[in-house]
């Protein structure tokens, strides 16, 4: 009597075991295919963003006598695109994390070798002539033929210095003013506080370009037209509202208890702010500093409108005139200036990425 009972039980058990395995396998397959599709989508979306930068860099290092070397460009593409697809396939096929890493390392090595073989021989630094040759314009012009109404170029390092000065001074002012203002808005009640907060947001909603004519007249009347200081003031005014709003979010997240504790410990309000509250919002300060610096670094419209003398040029104006002067003929030099202009932003972003990510955590609360 006992035997049949046991056999039915074991059959039922084995049936259900098979069933579970199939379910697990199906779930694995679904997860894997979802990941593969997701990566395909991400690659497809990011390619149009990445490709122009890739071309810019390739052209800057390969173009000769003013003409973009299309052959080099195609060859570099022939290396890049298969490499990206190989990365994707590796990730899709690999069975474990270790396999993935090995596959990626192998594909990178092959890609680098192919790049060195196909593109390497055509790379040179000739287009970066502006970095060491103050009168690079005549050299370039002699390559492409005589040009009328030529622009007088300042030393590129001078423009670089101006850009650093504008971005740096703007950052210093915005960080100082925004921290103080945001602290006050976060901690104190005063008449008009909420309407001030609202107007901070509204100020940011308008396109700044609409104000360019009145700003021009204002700067002209107070005598700050064609001065770096004038541009710095304008940029600070436009950057402040948002910076204050971001900083307020960070200050709101600092508990009152800590401040009260500092006061009972014998600190004055100013000491409590400097020694206890400020260190808590360090990430917020770094975030707005990086954003403000990069905004100042890439600024184009205001410097183009308010700065005239070539000794006041910033990197964006320098780049504009390089393009304008050679009438779009010497792609190599234009790309090289672009790469040079890009590098500081890139370094800054990479160094500060950690803090920028925290902005969403610090949060913007009303």
């Amino acid at each position, binding site marked *: 009597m006992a035997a049949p009972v046991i056999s039915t039980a074991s059959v039922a058990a084995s049936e259900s075991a098979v069933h579970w395995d199939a379910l697990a396998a199906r779930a694995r397959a679904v997860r894997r295919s979802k990941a593969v599709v997701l990566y395909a989508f991400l690659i497809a979306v990011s390619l149009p963003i990445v490709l122009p930068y890739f071309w810019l860099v390739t052209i800057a290092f390969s173009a000769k006598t003013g003409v973009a070397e299309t052959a080099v460009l195609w060859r570099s593409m022939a290396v890049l695109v298969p490499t990206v697809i190989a990365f994707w396939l590796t990730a899709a096929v690999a069975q474990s994390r270790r396999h993935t890493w090995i596959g990626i390392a192998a594909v990178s090595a092959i890609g680098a070798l192919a790049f060195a073989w196909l593109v390497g021989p055509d790379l040179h630094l000739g287009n970066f002539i502006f970095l060491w040759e103050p009168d690079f314009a005549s050299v370039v012009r002699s390559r492409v033929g005589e040009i009328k109404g030529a622009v007088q170029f300042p030393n590129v390092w001078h423009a670089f210095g101006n850009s650093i000065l504008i971005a740096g001074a703007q950052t210093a002012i915005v960080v100082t003013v925004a921290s103080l203002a945001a602290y006050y808005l976060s901690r104190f009640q005063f008449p008009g506080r909420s309407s001030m907060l609202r107007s901070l947001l509204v100020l940011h909603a308008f396109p700044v370009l609409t104000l360019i004519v009145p700003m021009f007249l204002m700067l002209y009347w107070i005598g700050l037209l064609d001065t770096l200081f004038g541009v710095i003031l304008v940029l600070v005014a436009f950057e402040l509202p948002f910076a204050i709003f971001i900083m307020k979010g960070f200050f709101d997240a600092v*508990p009152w208890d800590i401040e*009260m*504790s*500092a*006061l*009972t*410990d*014998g*600190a004055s309000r100013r000491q409590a702010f400097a020694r206890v509250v400020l260190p808590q919002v*360090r990430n917020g300060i770094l975030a707005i500093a990086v954003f403000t610096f990069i905004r100042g670094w890439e600024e184009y419209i205001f410097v183009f409108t308010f700065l005239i003398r070539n000794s006041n040029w910033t990197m964006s104006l320098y780049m504009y005139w390089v393009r304008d002067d050679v009438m779009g003929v010497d792609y190599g030099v234009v790309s090289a200036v672009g790469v040079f202009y890009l590098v500081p932003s890139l370094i800054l972003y990479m160094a500060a990425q950690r803090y920028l990510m925290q902005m969403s955590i610090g949060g913007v609360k009303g």
Partner: protein
Amino acid sequence: MAKIEFRNVVKRFGAVEVIPEMNLVIEDGEFVALLGPSGCGKSTSLFMLAGIYLPSGGELLFDGHVVNEVETRDRNVGIVFQSYALYPHMSVRDNILFPLRFKKTPRDEALARVKAAADLVRVLELLDRRPSELSGGQQQRVALARALVKEPQLLLLDEPLSNLDASLRLSMRTELKSLQAQLGVTTVLVTHDQIEATTMADRIICMRAGEIEQVGTPDDLYLRPSSLFVAGFIGSPPINLLSGEAEGGTVTVNGARFPVEGASGSLTIGLRPEHLRFGHTGFSGRIAQIEPMGREILYVVETGMGAVRVLEQGSSPAHSTGEQVNIGFLSEDSLVFDTAREKLIAGAHVRAPT
């Protein structure tokens, strides 16, 4: 050390009067507890002592001097917050050192005092850690060391134990009390937990809606609560309150008749669960629920007057659910309150129905 005095202190926030009028004297070296439900003004009083809130009226005195206008940092007050409020970017050593920086204490002496304070609360081996690397109990000790290192004349504790787990709370209670006795510093504890207040404080100030309901020793508040509010707030499990009408020397509560002495009109009878006994006489009911509490057993008894809680000694129940019981008590243990005024009628007692 200081003697603290509130003289007609008023605190308003805009139009809201949080503390209508407060009069209170805290003796030098005393450990008092401000006890009350949240929103009763106990934390507001504490922050006025610390100087974070300014009184809207009246006078606050330290050792007979009016300190209304004195800045927080000049009051020499140590405070431990519910959240501990340690400075997250500083090591434990720097946290405890922080108050001494503003006192221009020479560095060697300051470090020695930090060590002494850390030793006192037993965090000496944690000095190089960050607050985020400490457990709740350790953070609390560090906060205490920081409050004590400047040798304050007044120590304020704002719900210091409410973020700790139950067993830690028990040991910290003992430690805080012995520490206070050892240092002799005037201490004000703010809490909504009656056990914390009754176990630690010499005197309890029970507050309700900004007003002081009763000031007294833990015993006073337990045995002679001056109002229904205090009676209901102190004691765990809570007191049984039965309201009825007195006529001709008998209070009638939903049919049950309690002989009463010294009171008449609308009355509320207060009977503590531990004063009630099962017996042959008294009012009757049916046991609805049994809750063993370790050394005691709490019976919830359904009676004609509603649920009545009875606390019996012992660890195994002598009765079972659904059993019909009679409940009696000693007359001197009963409390009688005037229902309308919510006040205790001193000397009035009821006897159990026969």
